[in-house]
């Protein structure tokens, strides 16, 4: 059974979104997603400063099984990427909601994250797939 923190927002492509106090959001892939992928061997990160659209492919996570796109859950500008993942992609497996974060984005619409799925809705989705 995978972990789904109550305080985060989610999308059906298995990314999580954390609303930060400064109006930015932090994004990663969920615990369920990392379990399905298995051990990651490579993470391709977007360039800082890039503008991403809602649902646009912005990163790639590659495991022994498969390579998958990571989609931006909302539109905005990429403020920072987790450089540590280039050397240690396993951080996503070890701590999907903490050290395994992927990008920080400044959303075009500051309220965009609130429209996304809450933990209960995502839990249902993840369980239906497990």
């Amino acid at each position, binding site marked *: 059974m995978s972990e789904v923190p109550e305080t985060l927002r989610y999308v059906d492509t298995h990314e999580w979104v954390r609303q930060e106090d400064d109006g930015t959001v932090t994004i990663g892939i969920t615990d369920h997603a990392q379990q399905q992928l298995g*051990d990651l*061997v490579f993470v*391709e990160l977007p360039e800082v400063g890039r503008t991403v659209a809602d649902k646009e492919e912005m990163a*790639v996570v590659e495991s*022994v099984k498969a390579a998958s796109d990571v989609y931006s859950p909302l539109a905005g500008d990429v403020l920072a990427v987790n450089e540590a993942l280039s050397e240690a992609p396993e951080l996503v497996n070890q701590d999907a909601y903490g050290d395994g974060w992927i990008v920080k984005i400044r959303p075009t619409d500051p309220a965009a994250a609130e429209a996304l799925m809450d933990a209960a809705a995502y839990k249902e989705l993840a369980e239906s797939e497990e």
Partner: protein
Amino acid sequence: MLIFEHSRAGRRAGSHLAPNAGKTADIPEHFLRKDPPALPEVSELQAVRHYTRLSRANFSIDTHFYPLGSCTMKYNPRACNTLAMLPGLVDRHPAAPASHSQGFMACLFELQEMLKEVTGMLAVSLAPMAGAQGEFAGVAMIRAYHDSRGDDERTEILVPDAAHGTNPATAVMCGYKVREIPTDAQGDVDLDALKEAVGRQTAGIMLTNPSTLGVFERRIEDIAAVVHEAGGLLYYDGANLNAILGKARPGDMGFDVVHMNLHKTFSTPHGGGGPGSGPVGVGERLLPFLPIPMVGENGDGYRWLTEPDCPQSIGRLSAFMGNAGIMLRAYIYARLLGRTGMVRVGEFATLNANYLAARLRQAGFELAYPERRATHEFIVTLKRQAKEVGVNAMDFAKRLLDFGYHAPTTYFPLLVPECLLIEPTETESKESLDGFAEAMIEIEKEARTRPAYVHGAPYTTPVRRLDDVRAARELNLAWSGKQSAQDDVPRPLKRQPRVG
């Protein structure tokens, strides 16, 4: 142990060939190396033992049942090899003039004709060196077609989500954006999503039929109509041609271009570098763009068709005419089968897959598409076993090695969780299929009674379970010449970003 580690300074093996007398090359003195190259110095016996040992450590179609889905690991008849090695074929120099190559060119010409007939296309070029290059040639021709019409708004290639990963990679290589088309619950392309996706930006669609889900795309004619109406072209990935060989033809389904993997469907050696061969066939629209050279015939003999004959060709893909030795083996295979044999390939490939699917289903295994008839391959999902006893598809695959079976394709297609993609091919007997089914049943029992044992498999292979995560994270591809394999310290290499 590498052969370099057997090396002792000064040890030699004699040559079987007479030494070449005198200078044969006109390479200037200052380009000639002064020091001998760092080659292993071993005796003939050491070389023989080394490579014999390596060959025995391997799984191959000559030693084991090899149901690797989507790869068509069928037996390569010895006759094809023997006949392709006839001195008149082997000793022909690739630069020999056409007048001295008529027999060889006749074989290639007839192979072009046979591939045309079996795919229902208007013309075939044998030039692509392997499947990936065949795909590249196919999409490059689609691009050349749109360019020749001044239609430069077409920027997208549609690829169903069940496709081989090579399809989106090829589209990107040819400068296209990829748009994914979903699959419906029955394993067919989602026609409504396709209708929404096509438009003036559509250059074409890349389809495998039967798809990698092991089912025949039932609405292929509707798909062709939708894509053609939008001005796009249809590309047929020949990876799964074995299932329909002699039974159905991509040309009749409305495809504009196909590539064939001779190393799959036409039984030429496969894997480990093959080499492959990926001929392309086209319909009327793409006729002018075929890669060269091809073999033409004009009443008094065969001739190479090159730039002057094909001014709009996408060009040459290699120095000569493709992998000649492989094309000869495919030619002989097709001649040995004949028209009736070709039909039996498709029939028995399908029969074997359906028999094995039915046996596994009766034994309680879950098929991914139980309502659909399997084509030449089918998918078992071990989702239930993974959830209930923690034994997943990879564990089954590894344990199968101990039973003397090469593992089926695992974790592909990506749409089906914990999947094994199983393709027995037509060359297996009922007994070998039964043996495989019994091994699966036995592993299922083990998974329930002693799962830890299955997690530890394989036990009988020269190397046990490999750490494929570490192997991928810390690529180590070059022998440094200093340490032995045991204390090898891997040096991390920077991964290249993927395309597609």
